[in-house]
């Protein structure tokens, strides 16, 4: 099993390099640089821009630029923001990443807490009223775009009813302790639900079909024939098998969650990586764009890696392949 995990981690490295090349190439292929928009500014001599380009290495051959960039990020140095002068990319990201991480975990928690029990219930009582409602909700959840749901939630739950704040992460900075935690959670409810919506629908459907599948399998019949109690059959024999594909799904969905955060954060003016990302695109702040894209890619890779490792732990059949 350790062999399997080590092998899996080794495969991770070339994928990381590939990812960095792709991110670099994409950024370079996009037209324009931080000076493009300003070139027409008659106040500034174009030669000054050219000088700065030279200084920033933007005129070097591409492979040289890549190696310079890659060797820097390998040491954790993502360079300086081109827009926020004098600020390092790391410090910008560090400021935001915690918010996004909390939001992501919060959304994931809501998703799992809602989706798994409902999925199990639906599977045990197929074609019941709750099962039909869950199916309907599932389709809606998948069909309604994030931003639209977010806007509706803001309109009704924040503006009309005033139950939840519509934006930001905290009301005031001079609270601390549990008051602060509560305030932050309160701010996360709407964006969290919005972000988790599609995932909830997906997990619910998955869980339902997995449990239904497992309940019909031969080994469940064997467990019942052995006289195992209903609880044991459900919680031991069924869930342990049904959860295997869910774990894989979680690996994939974790990346999707972070990319989903980009739009959700924008809707709720939530100061996370997503808003930073959108702003950086508007500002053509390439070092930040590249760093965040890379981060998203790495998150997806790590998600898959973790999924594979967990998978090998819960499913004995793949340990010895």
């Amino acid at each position, binding site marked *: 099993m350790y062999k399997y995990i080590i092998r899996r981690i080794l495969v991770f490295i070339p994928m990381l390099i590939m990812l960095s090349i792709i991110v670099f190439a994409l950024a370079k292929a996009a037209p324009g640089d931080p000076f493009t928009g300003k070139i027409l500014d008659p106040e500034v001599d174009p030669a000054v821009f050219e000088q700065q380009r030279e200084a920033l290495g933007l005129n070097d051959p591409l492979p040289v630029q890549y190696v310079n960039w890659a060797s820097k990020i390998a040491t954790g140095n993502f360079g300086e923001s081109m827009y926020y002068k004098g600020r390092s990319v790391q410090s910008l990201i560090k400021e935001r990443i915690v918010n996004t991480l909390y939001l992501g975990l919060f959304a994931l928690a809501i998703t799992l807490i809602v989706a798994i029990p409902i999925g199990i219930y639906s599977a045990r009582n197929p074609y019941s009223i709750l099962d039909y409602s869950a199916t309907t909700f599932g389709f809606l959840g998948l069909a309604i775009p994030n931003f639209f749901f977010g806007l509706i939630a803001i309109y009704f739950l924040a503006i009309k009813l005033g139950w939840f704040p519509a934006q930001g992460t905290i009301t005031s900075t001079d609270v601390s302790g549990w008051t602060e935690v509560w305030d932050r959670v309160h701010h996360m409810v709407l964006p969290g639900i919005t972000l988790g919506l599609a995932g909830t629908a997906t997990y619910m459907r998955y869980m339902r079909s997995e449990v239904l599948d497992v309940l019909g*399998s*031969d*080994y469940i*019949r*064997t*467990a*019942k*024939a*052995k*006289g*195992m*109690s*209903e609880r*044991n059959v459900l919680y*031991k*024999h069924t869930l*342990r*098998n049904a959860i*295997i594909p869910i774990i894989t799904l979680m690996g994939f969905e974790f990346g999707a969650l972070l990319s989903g955060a980009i739009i959700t954060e924008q809707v709720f003016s939530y100061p996370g990586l997503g808003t930073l990302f959108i702003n950086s695109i508007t500002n053509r702040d390439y070092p930040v764009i590249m760093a965040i894209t890379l981060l998203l890619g790495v998150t997806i890779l790590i998600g898959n890696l973790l999924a594979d490792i967990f998978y090998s732990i*819960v*499913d*004995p*059949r793949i340990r*010895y392949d």
Partner: protein
Amino acid sequence: MSNDPVLDVEQLKTYFYLDEERVAKAVDDISFSIYPGETVALVGESGSGKSITALSIMQLINKPGKIVGGSISIASEEILTLSSKQMEKIRGNDIAMIFQEPMTALNPVFTIGNQISEILRKHKKLSNKAAQEKAINLLKTVGISRAEEIVNEYPHQLSGGMRQRVMIAMAISCDPKLLIADEPTTALDVTIQAQILDLMADMKEKFHMALLLITHDLGVVSEYADRVMVMYGGQIVEEAPTSKLLELTKHPYSQGLLESLPKLEEDVDRLGTIKGTVPPAYDFPSGCRFSSRCPFVMEKCKQSSTDLKKIDQDHFVRCYLYENGGSEE
């Protein structure tokens, strides 16, 4: 054999409610008993209701199926009226069952030891450690030599034959009174089949169980069974001690089954077959259910059917041909 039956089934009916109009009468009014130490074979073509009979005894019928009538007693205790909690104490403990597909019958994510010991913990209230030790002993009993290692292995690491041995170990773990084996060797290599059947016969002797052996292999029947019940269309059509059934076969369906069996001593060009297939359980012919395929069909067979009639002290047939005490015409 002796005294009270281990299993007594009376007028059992298990129907599947497929939709508004269609009801599949998978098991329709069957009665039989099994006595201590006896091996009774239940034979019949695919779809005749053998598995549903077995699962009804275990009360493991899933929707849309339902036991709609009759009575089942184990050692004179009625079990159809038990609550599901009480029934859990019977399954695996008083009646054990082995299934056709050893490849899928074990849970892929738990070790063999775990799956054997959980039944001991449940019914015998053994501690983890004691259950694990007993599991090793049971594996040795069923002829698995590397028992100490096998307990820590997973089902996918074992062959089909080994897995069926594990199933047998599980089945005998709580000294059941009755073992039901539903085509336990159909999915196995021919060479392994005999080993598994011999093992079951051994275990039956050793643990004083009665055995209900479901099969469609009449060769197996002649070798292992004391008594045979032939099933067709959810009903028992003939029942007799094995030698009698094989030699003095009465029911046209049983005769058809026997003719489709290759015989060593005879050199026939073609084996006999029963024409047609089993009609679906929601669409049996009115009258005798075999009338649509019977070579001796008479007019009244299409109108009505008869009961399982005694034609000899231990030989029963459900057929108009033998209405008058067994004389053929």
